[in-house]
């Protein structure tokens, strides 16, 4: 039985969780795609059209490009422009995530029967695995809309005739389809819910209110169909779905791109995920009421997605937990019944597990976890190179630039290139992770590859991944594209290829200590190699004079064995 919650306590805990999320979203968490998305947003507003072909690379110039997140690019650019750069993006991101988690927390609190503190703790547990997605990326729109979808559908089960309100999802899905192709995840979830309810309604033997469940299933199926049709209202039509399928079915990308790999339990992130997954599973196993077919399938499928790929963990932390929460709390209620009767031996609703816990507990809980989050974020910020390098800047700017970890990009090398280190006509070969930044900061030099993996599917991506394995026939692979200069970093294996080759000359390096792992603090040590056949010895000497590190005695002594430094 739901007891009316204390509104003040509810508000304090809601505020507490929102502030925790805001604090976590300030932690350094770079998005390598943000930069090309900013440029794309700017160009869309200039041309008044979404892009259909690639113009950023020379390897895939003119090939089809499905910028499914075109509207998110525009939003990010407008926020960037209006919000004085990354500070505006940070605030925007924090607001969006706060709204997402607020809806999530409200849903969890309601499922718990307004057991405020347990609901707060569950939301907190889910926030940590969710935080791996706290980047300024179009995914944050997916997190918001998928939470709204789950909230709307789960509400249908709780309240009476809210079915008509679900049709409000359709315009939302039209918007979502232009923000991020994660909209199809929403469609898939709706479909599973509808099919699950239809199975229970038509084939379930012991389903309570079968007719009601059947009607819910049919309504949901119709809404699913409408939402699906709504997703086709985008500049690319059905091609957006084809692009999504092509991405998820590309095994090379799934195995090579780090966010598509499976989570590991050897880090804090994996352990957080294991904890929240454990809660969900326990809830489904021990629920007082038998789980609905749809709910069981949703939790199982989302758990599978999360095990398959790191980037699906936030979705599990949101929708999976929202779905499993009622079962988890029903088990908790069985275990520790809460009573409104002060004479009863069961736990009072004024206790920590009740709907009206003591204010002291509420304050301590909310402020305690908030302090911990702020402290951990502060430590993460203050040990980052960007923070250390920006001591004279205002706090918000300092936090925002550390949040995106600008120094994890080849900033200084780009400055050198922009000042004419190499001719503009030269073809640049770069790393996958830095490609997005180069598109933004070095518009005069098309890239060879960047984070828009789907643009490079095929030989371009396969060859890049092969070169990462340091093959013996690497020269033949490079010869296919024949770049004139290479921008890389010592922690990228491909840097070894050029360093060890007499055909290439090292002309630029940010820091002479090539084995210093300061990229772990958010740094980048850029290296630029030029093809010897493209330059005369005199020109090479001139290039090198612009980078004293390359000519220093210590550098030449330590790395004398490498042909590229000669």
């Amino acid at each position, binding site marked *: 039985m739901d007891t009316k919650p204390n509104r003040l306590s509810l508000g304090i805990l809601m505020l507490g969780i929102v502030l925790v999320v805001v604090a976590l979203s300030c932690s350094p968490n770079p998005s390598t795609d943000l930069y090309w998305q900013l440029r794309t947003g700017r160009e869309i507003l200039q041309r008044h059209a979404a892009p259909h072909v690639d113009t950023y690379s020379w390897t895939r110039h003119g090939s089809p490009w499905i910028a499914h997140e075109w509207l998110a690019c525009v939003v990010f650019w407008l926020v960037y422009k209006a919000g004085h750069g990354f500070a505006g993006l940070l605030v925007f991101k924090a607001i969006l995530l706060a709204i997402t988690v607020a809806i999530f927390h409200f849903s969890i609190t309601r499922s718990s029967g307004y057991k405020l503190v347990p609901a707060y703790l569950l939301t907190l547990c889910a926030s940590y695995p969710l935080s791996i997605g706290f980047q300024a990326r179009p995914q944050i729109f997916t997190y918001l809309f998928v939470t709204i979808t789950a909230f709307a559908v789960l509400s249908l089960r709780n309240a009476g005739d809210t079915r008509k309100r679900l049709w409000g999802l359709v315009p939302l899905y039209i918007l979502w389809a232009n923000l991020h192709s994660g909209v199809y995840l929403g469609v898939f979830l709706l479909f599973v819910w509808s099919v699950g309810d239809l*199975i229970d309604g038509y*084939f*379930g*033997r*012991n389903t309570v209110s079968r007719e009601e469940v059947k009607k819910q299933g049919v309504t949901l199926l119709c809404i699913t169909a409408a939402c699906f049709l709504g997703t086709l209202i985008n500049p690319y039509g059905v091609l957006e779905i084809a692009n999504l399928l092509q991405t998820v079915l590309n*095994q090379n990308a*799934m*195995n090579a791109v780090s966010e598509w*790999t*499976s*989570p*590991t*339990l*050897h880090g804090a992130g*994996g352990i957080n995920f*294991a904890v929240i997954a*454990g809660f969900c*599973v326990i809830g*489904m*196993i*021990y629920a007082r009421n038998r*789980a609905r077919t749809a709910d*069981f399938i949703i939790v*199982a499928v989302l758990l*599978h997605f999360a*095990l*398959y790929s790191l980037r699906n963990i936030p979705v599990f932390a949101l929708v999976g937990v929202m779905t499993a929460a009622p079962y988890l709390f029903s088990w908790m209620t069985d275990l520790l019944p809460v009573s409104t009767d002060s004479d009863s031996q069961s736990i009072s609703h004024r206790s920590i597990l009740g709907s009206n816990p003591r204010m002291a507990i509420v304050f301590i809980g909310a402020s305690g976890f908030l302090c911990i989050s702020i402290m951990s974020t502060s430590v993460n910020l203050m040990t980052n190179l960007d923070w250390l390098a920006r001591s004279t800047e205002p706090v918000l700017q300092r936090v925002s630039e550390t949040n995106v970890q600008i120094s994890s990009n080849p900033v200084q090398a780009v400055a050198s290139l922009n000042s004419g280190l190499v001719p503009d006509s030269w073809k640049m070969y770069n790393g996958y992770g830095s490609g997005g930044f180069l598109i933004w900061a070095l518009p005069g030099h098309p890239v060879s590859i960047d984070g828009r993996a789907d643009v490079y599917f095929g030989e371009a991506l396969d060859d890049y991944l092969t070169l990462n*394995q*340091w*093959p*013996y*026939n690497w*020269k033949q692979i490079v010869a296919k594209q024949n770049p004139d200069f290479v921008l890389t970093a*010592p922690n990228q*294996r491909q840097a*070894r290829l050029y*360093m*060890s*080759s*007499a*055909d290439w000359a090292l002309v630029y390096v940010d820091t002479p200590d*090539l*084995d210093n792992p300061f990229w772990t603090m958010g740094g980048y040590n850029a290296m630029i190699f030029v093809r010897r056949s493209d330059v005369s010895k005199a020109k090479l000497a001139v290039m090198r004079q612009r980078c004293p590190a390359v000519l220093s005695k210590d550098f030449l002594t*330590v*790395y004398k*064995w*490498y*042909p590229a430094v000669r």
Partner: protein
Amino acid sequence: MIGPHLAKSGIHVIQSSGMVKTGKSTVGSSKVVMGVCLFLYALWICAQPHTVPDLWWQLRIGDGIREAHRIPRHDVFSWSCYGHPLVLHEWGSCLIFAECYRHLGKLSGIWMLGAAVAGLILEGLYLLLLKNKTTPPVIAFFLALMAGRLCAEFFTPRPHLFTFLCLIASLGILNSFRVNSKVSPFGFLGLILIQILWANLHAAAPVFVAICLCFAVGDGLHGLIEAGKNKELSRVYLKNCIIELFCAVASLAAMMVNPYGLGIYRIFLDTVSNKVLPTTSMAAEWQSADFHDSYGRALEAFVFLIGFILTATRKKHNIGDVLALGLLILSAFYAVRNGPILGLAGSLIAAPYAAGAFARLSERYLPLEALGKLLSKRQTLYTQAIALSVSLVFLVGLFQAWNAGLDRAFMLQSVPESACAFIKKEKIPTSLKLYNEYNTGSYLIWRLPNYPVFISTEAFVYFGPVFNTYLQMNQIPFDWRSLMVRYNPQMVLMGTDDIQAHLFLEAPDWALVYADGPLSDTDQSTNLIFIKRSAGTKDLISRCRADCPEVGSTDFKEYLSAR
């Protein structure tokens, strides 16, 4: 009605009021067919290509134990860690492998031993699953098959096989104690003997203790919960709790009957608490499961099956069972090498809940009940047909593997046999310090006993500076020479598939003197030998190069000249 009938009918999963009773003889023949199928499955797994990186040093140690009649306590195989303390927890396995090698036809004997133990593991699991009357044979068969799949990567001649065997034997005995709420003297003696044997075959015996403790905690909690409601039941639970605690303590004590005493725990703790191993790709079995590959998918499927069984079952959960399963699942996700333990122990723990889960599933959905009725009429025929078909597939696979021989089963093409023969033939001085690859170190210990290695898969010997240096070299640092200064090797042996080979190929201060194949990126690795250039090795380098024409081949020349 479903439920109690299951115990008597044996193989009926889904029944309704029109149930068909099957005779005991047909049920028995089904069990036999499925049992044979499982045994063939085990053999088939063993016949698949597996590398055996540890086997070689274990054979050499076994030979050494037999000859010297004592167990080594210090390393003598490497020059980097010579004299370091050695806790050889698997000394018993080493001796068994060495004896098999000597008396049963060398590698064939080793393979037969491995296959026999693997077969025994799956059969033992199957029999224990069948022992539980509520578990229908077809579910027992299916669970054993899935457990076999999780064990597949580890059904190689390694001490782990004995761990798997001892684990299911121990769990079988413990289960009999739990069911009867009584410790039988013979059963207890058997348990102690198994623990003693286990502690001398492999150090994974604490796994059983951990499971016992989970059961003890669960039964203790149940005992306390039932104390107010049902005193008789509470007494049973508490008695079981005491039995399980007793078994755990007795097992811990029995494990100390080994040459190292308490030191056996230290090696176990050192290995599981090592933070470096799981981060390296060369120790893949210590990493978390990758759900992109087939093993990860099998693990996921098994875990989902367990989750489904626990969710859907009518049988009341024992908290201890759930705790144990949770711990096993977490450990399997943490490190791939724990997958088999989940498969074996998890099957035994989850089996009693399985029949109720499938029965409930059929109760819930009308079409499944109809399907169940349809299947149950010819269930024996279907299960026998499936088991026979699967057996046929395994037989064909075994026949193919037989024709391919042990070379394929043990992937002998991956060992640097020719390179070792070259080193012996050229009489390369044993004073030259050999720097080698991690995974081939073991073979070099066996094949080149006079040449101490830099590192091998006896990882625990090298934990510390040597291991860390090797890992740093695997990151191919630019200034790798400063890492090597401390050790100053003069000879290097590694394959072209090892990333470090590039360092020496490109180094002008190292001379390539041997290659047994082309310089390529195919699966077939070419073994390379390098000698450090110095006044003292000039003649050696010339001589070796003259005797190895491959070194002067086109692709090597092109690669080296184009640096």
